[in-house]
């Protein structure tokens, strides 16, 4: 066997593998506003609010998901102080929908927030460049909800871009 073969073969093999593999790519950015306020917030009312999420993704196939990692699992949770006598969590989960002016974006129907990641918007051929998504929140509060004045309810929505 010729000696040069032993030198060239590993290098060629490694090179072929790397060429066949897609390169590392992508930049994703995601930022949210300073929070949203739901109003009117009280028993027997439907509170609504909106916010925005700005996303950048160089990959035309992306997915935006939402979930609640907190103890409420999609439901607003009462604060730790000033909430004696109030329901620890609201009965209904927070409803969430996302809209986008981009044509290639497929927004999902309104979801009931939960501990599971749920897709709120997706695309297979639409890159994002500081695209703004409007987030719409709806909280239905039944009349039987025990909510004392001064008790603050809150929720943290986790948006995942991939």
């Amino acid at each position, binding site marked *: *066997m010729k000696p040069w*073969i*032993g*030198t060239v073969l*590993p*290098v060629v093999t*490694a*090179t072929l593998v*790397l060429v066949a*593999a897609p*390169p*590392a*790519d*992508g*930049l994703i*950015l995601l*930022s*949210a*506003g*300073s*929070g*949203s*306020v*739901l109003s009117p917030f009280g028993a027997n009312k439907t509170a609504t*609010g909106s916010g925005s*999420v*700005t996303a*950048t*993704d*160089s*990959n035309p*196939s992306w*997915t935006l*998901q939402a979930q609640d990692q907190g*103890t409420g*699992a*999609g439901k607003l949770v009462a604060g730790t102080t000033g909430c004696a006598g109030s329901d*620890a969590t609201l009965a*209904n*989960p*927070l*409803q969430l929908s996302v809209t986008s002016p981009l044509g290639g974006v497929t927004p999902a*129907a309104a*979801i*009931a927030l*939960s*501990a*599971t*990641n749920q*897709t709120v918007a997706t695309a*297979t051929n639409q890159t994002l460049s500081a695209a703004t998504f409007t987030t719409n929140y709806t909280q239905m509060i039944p009349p039987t909800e025990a909510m004392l004045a001064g008790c603050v309810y*809150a*929720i*943290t*929505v*986790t*948006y*995942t*871009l*991939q």
Partner: protein
Amino acid sequence: MVTISKRNLLLAAAVLWLCAEPALAVPLPGGTAGFGIAPARRHVVGNPGMALTPTTVINGTSSSYQVSVFPAILTQELSGAFDFVETPRSLNDSKLVMTASPGSFVMAPGTTRPVDLRWNMLPGGHKWIAMGVVFQGFAAGQSGTVHVITRLLSVNFLSLPGLTKVNGVFTGLYAEQSAPRVLRFLARVENTGDRFAAPSAGRLVLSDSLGRVVFSEPWMGDVVLPGAQRDFPIDVRTVLPAGRYTATVTMRFGGERSRSTSFTLVGPNQLPTPAITIRDFNANGVIGSPAKVTARILSSGTAPAGLTMHLYLANASDASPGATALATAQVSYRNLVPGSVTQLSHPLGGGLHAGSYRVIATWVDPTGAQHTAQADFTPTAGHSLSQRIWSFIQHHVIFLIGLLVMALVMALAYTARRLRGGQREIQAELAAMRAQLQAATLDDHAPPGKPAASRSSRLGTGMSTRPKAKSSATTKARPRSAVKSDAARSNGASAETNSSAAKAATPAKAKPRAKATGARSAGVTPARARLNRAKANGATTNGAKAKPNRAKANGARANGATATQPAAKPNGAKATGPTRRSTHSAGPGAPVGNGHKPTARKATAVKANGVKANGVKANGVKANGSGAGASSTRRKTTGVNPSKSNGAASNGSKPAPRSRSAAAESSPAAIVATPTQTASTPPNQSGTGADLTSTDVRANRAGELLALASRSHARRPLPSDRDDA
């Protein structure tokens, strides 16, 4: 055999190291705003134990970010999105495969920071693994009700070097109605190879029933994990008329692949597509009760759809795949009409204990795609019995108050009824006794040729109670139930009240009362005494013309027994004159008072139902408080028409012809209060039996009884009396 020296191997490794991290070549874009990472994806072919190019974390916002980083093992959903299990166990397994450091840090606004990644190992028997690195940022200074955490998922396709097989197939092609006049075709692709690969050269072609291509468009593929399936949606906005069509998808995935399906449009771009959408999936529960699963099932397609949903209940802390479910259930629906919404409300499991639970629902949509939804909940404390009662009271307070009021009213009515009943019994007893005494007296002392009633009437002076009970042979008790509203009513006594007396005194003007109670002579006159109104109830029984008696002595003047003012002018035979207003006289019993000097007894004391003993007309008797029902006899009279007076024949000899009273019937002769008899009582004598011409002791006893009865009535007025007043 090819011999590879160590030097050559090192050279190859150097080439790999230099080329395997092309992410280094990716420049960070300028002017990035937001919280971000780069690179977002990596394809790494190598052996575990290598360090990957660090990921740069960018904080392009004006807020500081609290960042945490952790790796996760990825799976892929049909939608193409990557998912990972976030249980502690799974996250620990992920850290064995890959580590990221630092795990958490704070980023000031406008800064970047690298995060080192290291691929440590592969699970046994695997040639590849998809690892994700989660960069989670929480911006400081958030306010409001809804806060936001941003997560960026970096996807790393890690595989061992070596020859690999690229292969993929179509596993389905489905058409669905994406939106009005928008068709969506889902090309489901499975990666059957052992390499991270994506289909290429994808295309969708629609042809009509004649084979003509009416639509053709490419679609872009993306990475499909080995062994996974993924849907590639292709939207058709070109409007096609109703008809039958054939859809064909093609791709290159280890070779040329294609799949066709036929479909029918029932309208312009309108598919009869069954579809199911689950909304508002939720679960809750109360300690001690089963979990309650709720959801809205929307038949979102254009054709009837069916659904079979499997429900699982598990502890939230141990709800990883493969864990044993605490309870399961299955719910099935068939032929859900398009557009209909079905409310799911299903109990799951047995009594819950305190803790956190998770309900997982799985179902397969009409396209065959598997879906999963889950909801976590913490059962609330059940309400105790007292709490439930209190809650019931709170929610029905008005009803309960109404009920209480009704109960009070009923209790009052019952009490009043009992009181009245008791009084009547007493009265009846007294009347019976009185009647007996009178009867006895009559029997003993009736002079020949004179009606016995004349004496009995005298005896009856002080006996104004109602002969409710069977009084005597001549006094028939009237049943209580037969009481009418009239004066005579209650006791069946003759309501020969003042009116009758007055009538007797004024024959010309007196109006006979047909029903007049007075006519029921022999009974008890349930007259009601009227204090201070007693107008001379003269007992003109004999038809003698009555003269007005001005003695308006309070109380009953006429009856000696009831007169309250001694000064009252005794009504002798004439005395009982016309009263301007006939009061309820004690009627029968009292009657005897005619001509008697009123006693000083207080009128009210005589309220006892006047007994018209033996039907003696109670002429002129102002029966104080005599029995019930005397009210109706108030009438202004100027005299008495003996002939018309009810049963109170002026001469007393004639019984009341129309008397309905049993008493009257039984003792017609009792109506005979002769003038002689009435006048025989000295004015200054006590009215109560003062006119006794008999020495019969029983008569005296009768007077005593009457006094007792009178006192009794004075203490307990009958409600009916009050009414009459």
